[in-house]
């Protein structure tokens, strides 16, 4: 598949199919996690808690991968592993707030309390995600080096050509499917795990 020839980026523009898709997959699975956290608060079923927590864990894996690949990409196009870019810092803050979710979950033994508190925290963490990944880069005074800098770092401003779209959109779907598959494996495992523990 031909790609547009751009300075500095060169062939690394193909990272779009990997690095960017990591974030799409993360956003998707964390949204699922949020939905199940809200569902849990409305109707406290244990299964909702399992789905919410495992989706959040899986989303973290993809988020960390997105951060590492982004860091490498930045090194060879922007010249540094980490720069003071509103998108980078926003993503790092969100990941930290989701790390706090894991810490919060593992710090409580009482299952009822743990699921309720972590569901509430998950909603908060998702709000942080939206604020720091979607809102903050658009409001920040510092221009992001990401495509579509200064103003709207959104999707339409990517100067994708039609050949790249042909790969990019299926790649997003593929990575999201892979992500949900891993999440579903985690969910099923956790269900079996809890079932075993309840039987003892």
């Amino acid at each position, binding site marked *: 598949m031909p790609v547009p020839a751009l300075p500095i980026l060169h062939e690394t523009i193909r990272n779009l199919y990997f690095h960017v898709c990591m974030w799409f997959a993360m956003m998707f699975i964390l949204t699922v996690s949020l939905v199940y956290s809200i569902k849990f608060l409305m109707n406290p079923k244990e299964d909702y808690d399992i789905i919410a927590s495992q989706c959040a864990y899986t989303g973290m894996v993809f988020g960390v991968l997105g951060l590492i690949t982004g860091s*490498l990409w930045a090194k060879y196009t922007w010249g540094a592993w980490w720069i003071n870019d509103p998108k980078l810092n926003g993503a790092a803050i969100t990941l930290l707030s989701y790390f706090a979710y894991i810490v919060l979950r593992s710090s409580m033994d009482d299952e009822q309390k743990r699921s309720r508190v972590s569901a509430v925290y998950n909603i908060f963490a998702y709000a942080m995600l939206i604020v720091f990944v979607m809102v903050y880069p658009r409001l920040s005074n510092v221009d992001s080096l990401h495509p579509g800098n200064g103003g709207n770092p959104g999707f339409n401003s990517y100067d994708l050509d039609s050949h790249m779209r042909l790969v990019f959109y299926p790649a997003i779907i593929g990575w999201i499917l892979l992500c949900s598959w891993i999440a579903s494996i985690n969910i099923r495992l956790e269900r079996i795990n809890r079932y075993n523990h309840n039987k003892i």
Partner: protein
Amino acid sequence: MRKIRNLLLLFALLCTGKLFAQTEPAGNVDMADSLRNSGKIYVVVAVVLIILAGLLLYVIGIDRKVSKMEKEIEDKK
């Protein structure tokens, strides 16, 4: 007194570090090393490898979790 002196020394040392950092060392120039060869295609390769390695490590983690659960079930029997 000694503590303050040491702190001041440390501060002075840090300042000199800043001074040296202003002249760019020769090693930091973006030369055509292997990752910048062939239109930086190896950066893409590295990114794919990172993702593969990351997912592989994660799957190994899941495998260990399953083994632990299997052992728990064995122990109960």
